[in-house]
């Protein structure tokens, strides 16, 4: 087990480094001359602004050297300063991470709480009208982007009830009620729209398990249907479902970027958008690193969780 964890940690580090390497390179290939753009708006001025900005970006160094320098800086916990306004990236991350984490976690909880049970019910009631309705619902949620649902809800609520979600962010610790009022709607919509795929996967996994001999045996032994479903079938169906949750989380992380824009939430997703628009490389790289760390960590945790669910799985 220890060897497995060590191996996975090494693999995680390689993954994160690989991701940041790709992002480090990719931003430099974004359309438009980034140095021109940054030099024209950044804190660096003067006739040599172009050369100075190149130096700040490390573009006057070989690519690998520049990347190495950035990694060294990040290893000390310093994500650098905005090239546009000189403010510390660390500051924005410190403010934005709790917001995105709250939205992400709430969405994850809603998504799992919605997607998994619905998938189980749909599988148990296969080919019934309940199954039909639930599958149709999942298709709708898959087809219609979550942000569109969000905007429609805002527009309808505004037209019909003159209601709008809160537009001022207040921390949970300062006013939990106001905070939840602001987060509840985006978390539900993001969670539900992300859950459609999870629901379908759960259904497929359950159907596969439901046909197994041991399930038939359990039923033959006279166990209640509830026990058959939740104790025997669901637990075995859970393994592939858990593996999907890592992907599910990545989907939610991507969703937070847009949902933070719509619902006035000052998370790092919203920050990422503005950084991309202004070609503020330090910010983009920092957030990419954080997202990569989160996804890798969650996937590691889900893999380790298998051992709890399936005693046959040992590393």
């Amino acid at each position, binding site marked *: 087990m220890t060897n497995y964890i060590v191996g996975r940690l090494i693999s995680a580090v390689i993954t994160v480094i690989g991701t940041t390497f790709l992002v480090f390179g990719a931003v430099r290939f974004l359309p438009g001359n980034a140095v021109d753009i940054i030099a024209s708006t950044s804190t660096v001025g003067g*006739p040599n602004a172009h050369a100075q900005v190149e130096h700040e970006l490390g573009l006057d160094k070989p690519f690998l050297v520049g990347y190495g320098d950035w990694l060294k800086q990040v290893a000390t916990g310093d994500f650098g300063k905005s090239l546009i306004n000189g403010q510390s990236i660390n500051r924005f991350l410190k403010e934005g991470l709790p917001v995105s984490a709250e939205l992400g976690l709430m969405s994850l909880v809603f998504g799992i709480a919605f997607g998994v049970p619905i998938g189980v019910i749909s599988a148990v009631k296969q080919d019934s009208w309940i199954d039909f309705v639930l599958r149709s619902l999942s298709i709708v949620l898959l087809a219609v982007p979550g942000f569109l649902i969000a905007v429609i809800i*805002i527009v309808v609520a505004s037209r019909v009830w003159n209601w709008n979600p809160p537009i001022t962010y207040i921390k949970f610790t300062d006013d939990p009620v106001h905070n939840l009022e602001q987060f509840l709607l985006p978390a539900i919509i993001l969670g539900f729209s992300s859950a459609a795929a999870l629901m379908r996967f759960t259904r497929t996994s359950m159907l596969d398990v439901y046909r197994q001999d041991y399930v038939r045996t359990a039923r033959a032994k006279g166990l209640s249907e509830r026990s058959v479903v939740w104790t025997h079938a669901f637990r075995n169906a859970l393994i592939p479902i858990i593996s999907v949750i890592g992907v599910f989380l990545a989907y939610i992380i991507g969703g937070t970027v847009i949902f933070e824009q719509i619902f006035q939430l000052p998370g790092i997703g919203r920050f990422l958008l503005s950084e991309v*628009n202004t070609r503020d490389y330090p910010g983009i790289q920092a957030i990419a690193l954080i997202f990569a760390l989160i996804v890798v960590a969650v996937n590691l945790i889900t893999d380790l969780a298998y051992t709890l669910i399936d005693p046959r799985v040992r590393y």
Partner: protein
Amino acid sequence: MQGNYWQRLNRRRFLAGMGTGAAGAAMLVSGACGSSSNKSSNGTTGPTSSGSSGGSGGSNVPTPPQISLAPDLKTIQSGTPKTGGSFHAVLGGGSPDQYDPLRDAGYPGLQVAGGCLSSLVRAHYPILGDLTIEPDLAETREQPDEQTTVFHLRKNAKWQNVAPVNGRDLTADDIKANFDYMRTAQPDFVLGPMFELVDRVDATDAHTVTVHTSKPYAPLISNLADIWGKIIPKEQYADDLAKQKPVGSGPFIFDHFTNGVEYVLKKNPDYYISGKPYVDELHWHNFDPSNPNLAPAAFKAKQIDTGGAATIPLALQLIKDVPNANWGWRYGVLNPMMLNNSVAPFNDERVRQAVMYAIDPESIIKITWQGFGKQGQQIPLWYSEYQLADADLPKRDVKKAKDLLSAAGHSNLDLVDKTFQGGQLAFGTLQVQQSLKDAGINLTIQQQQWADWRVNVYGIKGDFQCTMGGEFDFLSLDRQLWNSYHSKGAANNRHVKDANLDKMLDDARGIFDHAKSVAAYKAINKYITDHAINIALPNGTAPTATQPWVKGWFFDWSAGALLEMNFLDSVWLEAH
């Protein structure tokens, strides 16, 4: 001076300034411009005869061709100001990138900084009203001769009681330092070209500043009264502190911000105008510009005190939903088809004129602006006294266009218009493309990423054959015209080298007599139009609103000049 001047031009700013996307505005009532019945609160009453007072219901909904432009300024300005409360406004164009107006802060940064920073003088140009230049830090001024202006500062003026100025007195030395700062020889000091003629600034005593120019320079005051002409303390010059946080002597102190979402200013207790500001706090809210429903929804829910809508259909719906708001329609930014005068084919005046005569402005008004537009000119339309008569404006003439093209040696012509992504939908580009076809001109639209367009096409590099994407309008006509069309202008992206025009622009700078100045600038307007140095496409108008309880303040006539930001000390809120 280089072209970082252009950086303040932000796609979202243009779109916000025009009311984004297709703004529709009805044709102006022809008598509205300058009509004595529609003057500002400086003169007489507000609304036009189409009945848009601030308080009526369905009659407030404008329809082409007549619209009601002005809010009921008489009602807005009536009543005894009450203190207290928080004023919630909408940031136009995204979140602030930085806060130093002298170094080309973007539109949102200018809005936030506008409440924190003061000027020597400030300009006010209400919808359908008259332009006034009012005292700000300079309580009085005098002009002993055409090259000398003396400003007498308010003796009680102090910097805000926050670091790094800590409430110290604001003196003539600060103003002198600010002039030097404004004229720093760096590309991003966008006002530098406008003060090149300032020869010397003397702090005659602690509260007297004397500005000497090397030549008579009439636009000095309008440049200082512009939203960019702010006074920044010298402690903020180094390390780009002025970019990071606005600290000044204005009515509000920058308190805190939630990045990208909300920017909060608090009342400055040491503000030099006694009794002001009235409100305790000013909150700037940033809504995602790509979701035009968000700000109107917040306005309807009474979460914000200023409103409007990104498109005309949304605006008309919002007017129906909130009929008792104070509504005003104002002009968006200039809408030119910029031609590169230095390269083929536009280095030939006949080709430029051919394009001008081939364009169908009515189609742009009808389709892009949905009827709520007006043929544009070289000078912003809200500068009504500088406008040319309709008879002096070019009318579509496809035959003439073809004849001119033929005379220039072209039977057909292929052109490339570089624009930013989405820009072709917002400025009439598609209608231009369509109408040019009738004259045998094929216009290919080449889309670029916004930032790339801004720097390399729209910027001083002017790497284009032609481009459309809006253009900012300024209070200062010198900045509007000299900077853009003079061969030495820092914003001359059209690469104009016209000795006659240079002379006209130089001469206009030295004219102090108002009537003669108007005549001179009208002549420049006509010259640029007749020679098709720049083709002015129709402008749209943008609806804007405040909640009925907002008093003492409304938006000025130009969505782009931001002059109302100079008067945030006057806003107060009725109980509601």
